[in-house]
């Protein structure tokens, strides 16, 4: 559907991004060492784990409401790194999840970590727990655990919604070190207010590469940078182009769809300042605008905010 709707642009766009990613992954696998800038929040992990080791209190890891998907698994990957550290010092861990499927993945990965560290018997199956898949029941449960177990370090990473602050503040109350990262941007400010270290936005995805220096991950991180630069470039170029077009190039023709075959015909009109729908960039992203001319496409019109995250 989209294909038809936005012409070949989106196809090309995504393919280019994918190419960037894969190209860099291959490059990194070839053993080209790549630089990653410092991410403060992640350097704090060792400190946090060390502290809880001294205090002999558990490390708590919560991926928020993330379900089985890229975000949730990324979170669990980061947690597996933390667990490895904890396993080295024999520090107890707790992981609370809100999604049954993700729970099973986490269970697996954490068990593997303990095995690969050579201390399989240290792994306590009940340390990775499913709490509830109801948002606030989950919050209530985790708060209970935080306050009762007096966790010393708290990692909140993943899809966080309104419950983020409940947990962050409770952990703060008992003086736990907190490192947080939310993929839901509307929650980041609250984490910033309540936690010691916060990974903002993209740093969450950079984390696993940063921690494990895994060539695959580092490579794809470089690819991600290239992609961002590409987006920036597109925006800059098109902004310049649009400005010029808007200011200096008047619209001199009108398009319309006619006949059974819906043929596009153009007719000359007195020149006027281009309307939004007549600008090149608009035609590039929405080839079938102006909407007025073909109501059929209206329902498929892409929407700037076409995703349903209820920030509540």
């Amino acid at each position, binding site marked *: 559907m989209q294909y038809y709707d936005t012409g070949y642009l989106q196809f090309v766009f995504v393919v280019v991004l994918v190419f960037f990613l894969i190209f860099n992954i291959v490059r990194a696998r070839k053993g080209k060492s790549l630089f990653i800038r410092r991410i403060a929040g992640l350097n704090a992990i060792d400190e946090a784990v060390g502290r809880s080791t001294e205090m002999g209190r558990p490390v708590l890891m919560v991926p928020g409401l993330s379900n089985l998907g890229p975000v949730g698994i990324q979170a669990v990957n980061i947690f597996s790194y933390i667990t490895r550290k904890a396993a080295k010092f024999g520090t107890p861990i707790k992981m609370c999840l809100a999604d049954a499927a993700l729970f*099973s993945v986490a269970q697996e990965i954490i068990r593997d970590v303990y095995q690969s560290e050579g201390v399989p018997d240290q792994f306590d199956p009940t340390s990775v727990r499913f709490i509830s898949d109801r948002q606030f029941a989950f919050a209530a449960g985790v708060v209970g655990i935080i306050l009762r177990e007096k966790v010393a370090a708290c990692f909140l990473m993943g899809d966080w919604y309104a419950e983020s602050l409940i947990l962050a503040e409770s952990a703060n109350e008992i003086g736990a070190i907190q490192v947080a990262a939310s993929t839901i941007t509307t929650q980041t400010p609250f984490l910033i207010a309540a936690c010691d270290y916060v990974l903002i936005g993209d740093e969450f995805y950079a984390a696993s590469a940063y921690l494990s220096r895994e060539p695959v991950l*580092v490579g794809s991180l470089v690819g991600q940078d290239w992609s*961002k630069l590409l987006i920036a470039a597109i925006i800059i170029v098109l902004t310049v182009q649009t400005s010029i077009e*808007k200011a200096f190039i008047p619209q001199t023709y009108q398009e319309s769809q006619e006949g059974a075959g819906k043929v596009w015909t153009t007719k000359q009109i007195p020149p006027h300042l281009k309307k939004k729908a007549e600008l090149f960039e608009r035609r590039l992203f929405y080839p079938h605008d102006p909407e007025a001319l073909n109501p059929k496409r209206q329902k498929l019109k892409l929407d700037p905010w076409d995703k349903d995250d209820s920030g509540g």
Partner: protein
Amino acid sequence: MALSLDNANYQFIKMTAGAIVTLGIYTVLYKETKIYRFLEHMFLGLAAGLSLTLLWTQTLHDLWWGRMVGKTADKPGEWSQNGAWAWVLLLPLAGMAYTIFSRKHNWMSRVPIGILIGITAGQAIQNWFNQYGPQVENSIKPVIPTDWSRMTVPSKSGLTPEAIATIDNNLYLSQAINNLIFLATLLCVLSYFIFCTDFKTKFMTRMSSTGRLVLMVGFGAIFGTTIMTRFGLLIDRMYFVWIEWLMESLPRMVRGG
């Protein structure tokens, strides 16, 4: 028996329960009390029960069982839907996931999980442009004014629709500046999220530090707007306890009626 769900006494019982749990949960603000611990566990239990119920009544019954055994026609002359036996294959498939509890065969759990992951990943790739393409397009705003005659947008009160249309289509200096600020902000923040190059040039370091600063502006604004919702809910809760329950419904009960 003719007792209906909105019977006054029953409503009062429900409200009382509500008031009790409200105050009970709030005790955790002081410290983790026994009351809270009790309510917390009750809450978790209820939630689990609810999930189990909804699992069948809202997901499996229609989406799985209904399709597997088919439906009889509600009205005569209406097609009944055939059952598709293949849906039963989901049982063994899902069953594989439950091997995580066995040490020997736990690898099998990764097959159904893998399928699910594949699906979510695929969907993410599929929806990607639909979600973000428009945002890219939306960030492209002209920055050269088309009408230098005045700085700000003229007020539109009492103008003909045509005149208003021209004003809307024009780009005035103030708007151009705003758009420029928009662009600058966007680029600064974007530059903050470049990980794999350490910026040598002063300009770039400035840019990314500005980016971080600008981010904080955005976060501050979010903080402000969110507060209203949160306080609104708290106030509503208090209203429920003090006014609706304590001041209105309790006396009514005491008076008996």
